[in-house]
C-alpha cells in the first residue's frame, strides 16, 4: 500500500505491505493499517485509491491492485 505526504511521515514509510485475506474490503484494509500503526493520527475515514481511482469503503480488493492511502489533498 502506497503512502504519501503526512501519512508517509506518520507511518514512517512510503509503502507498507499488509497480508490480507481474499475478499478484503477497503474498510478492512484501513482497519489493518490502524492496527499496524495505532499511534498514527489517521482521520475516521481516510481516502483510499485503488488502481489510481478513489474507492469506496465496501470496494473489494483483488490481488495485484495498486492501493494507496490518500491524505487530504492540497494542490493548487
Amino acid at each position, binding site marked *: 500500500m502506497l503512502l504519501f505526504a503526512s501519512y508517509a511521515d506518520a507511518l514512517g514509510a512510503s509503502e507498507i505491505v499488509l497480508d490480507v485475506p481474499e475478499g478484503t474490503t477497503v474498510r478492512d484494509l484501513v482497519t489493518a493499517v490502524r492496527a499496524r500503526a495505532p499511534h498514527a493520527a489517521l482521520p475516521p475515514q481516510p481516502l483510499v485509491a485503488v488502481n489510481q481511482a478513489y474507492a469506496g469503503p465496501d470496494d473489494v480488493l483483488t490481488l495485484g491492485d495498486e492501493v494507496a492511502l490518500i*491524505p487530504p489533498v492540497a494542490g493548487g
Partner: protein
Amino acid sequence: MMRAAIVNRPLDATALLAEVASDAHGATTLFVGTVRNVNSGRAVSGIEYSAYDAMATVELQRILDETALRFTDVSVVVEHRVGTLALQEASVIIATAHAHRAPALDAQRYVIEELKKRVPVWKREHYTDGTREWVGAAS
C-alpha cells in the same frame, strides 16, 4: 487541445497560452496559483509540493474529460508542478480557450475547483522560523 501533466520544472504561462491558441477562439483564460508569503498568519518562505504522480495525472485527465463534456469544443491545458517552490513561483497553471467567453471562464473555474478537491497533490509549507508543516493534514 486537452492536456494535463504533473511536472517538476518551472511552469511557463506564455507556453500554455500559446498551446491553447487558435483563431477559432475568441476568449482565452489563464489561472496561475503561486506561493504566497503568508498562510494562516504564518510567514511562509516556500512550499514543497509532492504528488501521487501517476494518479494525479489520471485524475487531472478525468477532470479534463468532464470539462470537455460540459463545455463542448473547449481547449484546456493544465500543469501542476511538484518540488520545492520559492515565493511567487507558480504551482499550477490552467489555460482554457473557447470561441466564447462564458465556456472559457466556466471551464477555468471547473478545472481549478475540481483540482483542489480531487487531485492527489500535497504541500508542506516552510516557514521563515525554520519549521515545516503539511497543509490540510489532520495533526
